[in-house]
């Protein structure tokens, strides 16, 4: 392994990791505010990929421009799912039940996608930048990864602004800290929860678009995705947005370095060893708060 290989692996890790961080942010936001473990997040990402694919292939819409349609659509899908299934979950078993309910939702969506698009893998290939790259510092960097990184940065920045610089964000953070106290000071926790679920699903449209331009996918691609997303938010700390960002990027960087320096076979294992070590010393994850886990 040369120094150039190592630098390339780190750059790849940052570019790809930011997109995973974006997908995981939705998941951790939903858990933080609602105590819901949304195992359907993977299939929502794939639904986002298919929406971008359909717009791109059938209507010639550029995948990035298509986000103006797919993100609001996914927001609405999130609102409907939350109102129809998630809002009904109550009581001490809510978090455990949410796994079953969202798993059922994921199976229904997977079945529907298989019926509509078949199980044949597809890829969003229409845009010219999907297969081209730029030669920088002696290495080829694909445009789609650079654009994906920029998109993820913009969306994560917007999310940060929404959560830390707006009145709605203050309500979300209050709900994140303590739902009962937030309700007592007049925050409509139900409404905040519904909107947060919608936002959490809306970001999957962006993640799904990037995933669909970089990978051939079908509905079953969601299984590999959800395991990775759950791992990211556990490492980062469930409910922590900063944690999702740091864990998403560091996970992919670590995997890429191990794959390049040692062997791809060890990349996942090394990450999980690191995860076990981190959780041994910080059971709440890197940025998680103990109270958030028991809320």
């Amino acid at each position: 392994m040369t120094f150039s290989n190592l630098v390339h692996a780190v750059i790849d890790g940052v570019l790809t990791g930011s997109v995973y961080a974006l997908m995981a942010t939705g998941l951790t936001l939903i858990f933080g505010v609602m105590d819901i473990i949304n195992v359907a997040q993977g299939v929502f990402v794939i639904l986002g990929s298919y929406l971008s694919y359909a717009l791109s292939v059938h209507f010639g819409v550029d995948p990035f421009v298509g986000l103006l349609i797919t993100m609001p659509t996914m927001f609405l899908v999130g609102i409907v799912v939350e109102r129809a299934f998630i809002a009904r979950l109550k009581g001490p078993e809510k978090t455990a039940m949410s796994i079953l309910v969202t798993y059922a939702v994921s199976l229904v969506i997977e079945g529907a996608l298989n019926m509509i698009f078949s199980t044949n893998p597809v890829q969003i290939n229409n845009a010219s930048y999907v297969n081209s790259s730029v030669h920088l510092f002696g290495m080829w960097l694909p445009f789609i990864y650079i654009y994906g990184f920029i998109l993820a940065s913009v969306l994560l920045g917007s999310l940060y602004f929404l959560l830390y610089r707006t009145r709605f964000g203050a309500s979300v953070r209050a709900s994140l800290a303590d739902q009962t106290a937030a309700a007592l000071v007049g925050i409509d926790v139900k409404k905040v929860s519904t909107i947060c679920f919608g936002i959490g699903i809306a970001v999957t449209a962006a993640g799904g678009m990037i995933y669909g331009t970089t990978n051939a996918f079908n509905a079953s691609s969601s299984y590999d995705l959800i395991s990775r997303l759950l791992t990211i938010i556990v490492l980062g700390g469930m409910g922590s947005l900063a944690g999702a960002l740091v864990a998403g990027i560091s996970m992919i960087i670590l995997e890429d370095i191990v794959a390049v320096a040692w062997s791809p076979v060890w990349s996942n294992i090394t990450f999980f060893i690191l995860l076990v070590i981190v959780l041994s010393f910080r059971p709440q994850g890197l940025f998680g708060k103990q109270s958030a886990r028991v809320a």
Partner: protein
Amino acid sequence: MNTKGYFFRLASVATLGASSLIAVGAAESSSALAAGSPIKIGISLSLSGDFSSDGIAFQQGYQLWANDVNAKGGLLGHPVVLDIVSDASDPTQVTANYQKLISQDKVALTFGPYSSLLSLPAAQTVSRYGYALVEGAGGAPSVFAAKLHNLFDVSLPVANALQPFAQWVAGLPKAQRPKTASYVTSNDPFTQPQIPVAKKIMSKAGIKTAYSSVFPAETTDYTPIADRVAQAGAQVVVLGAVDVPTVAAFMKAFAQMHYNPKVFVASAGPDQGTQFTSAVTQKAANGMMVPSSWYGGSANPLSKAMVANFIKVHGGTASQISADIAEAYSVGQTIVAAVKATKGFNNAKIIKYLHSGVKIKTVQGNVKFNSLGENFSMTAYTFQWQGANFVQINPATDPNSKKVVFPKPAW
């Protein structure tokens, strides 16, 4: 006397005896069917999960065979009914599915699932009930290493699948012969055994290994691995992949890295017809190679008839038909021969017949099993996408082989 131990032993003996009776009963009850009543065949297929694409293609192949058999009056006068359940690509679910199919659904015969990963647990399960398991995809050495007497794979044993390809590369005139090769494979029982065979032949011909690596089957981000292959810059890439998305990911990464190997072969993926071309585009597919034992343009009359039937039902062209269809269809043809020869549905007789060294004609070619259930009479071919056509390119001695497009056109 240890009463507890005595009762435990008694209970164990009783359970074993009961299991054996159920197994014998299940395997033999199927041989006694009322005239004209349907014959049920149990199959577990990956209709969701990682193998769903191939699983659904297998379902089409099995169904096409069943329709064709029923159109000719069924199996010994019994209309064929396929009892297909989904295993979600999960080896644990496969076991549960075959138990259910045999003990609850009372199927008379069982056909195999898709992939070596699922075939082994499937064969082990149906073996306990005395059933034969004829399968179309599951030819990894690890499957046959279990030495199951009831397992029969109608397709080419996978270990030697890349042999004709490697021999073709090694046999190129020295001036044209590539100097370097990269070998990268998923750690799947189907792909991993194929690589050393190809590597040995090509190394012997002086082709140096530029890069060699194994990656986990559950990998989602192929970028660092593909980057390393591209950076190695070998003239030949041998990729051990089980599915289209893996091959597509490498192709895309190579294109983005401006890396154009002279030869690119994948152990599976390019043989999936329209599934492959729709994922990677027809242009990128041009020049891609894959080992297989069947293609849509095969001159085999049985294959021609099947292809015509498939197109009548599903549309498209011969090149767009997945090899999975032929693998599944061959399973059905093998069982037809066995049922006709044994004049019934007795699994013990079917197993004995299939082990007798008999040669059975299928859409993929001849099927003849050795003691492990491997089909050792089938020829390995290499195929290549040339424009919109998927054509046979070797063995060169075969009159159906077309001229190889070499070097592979740029992406």
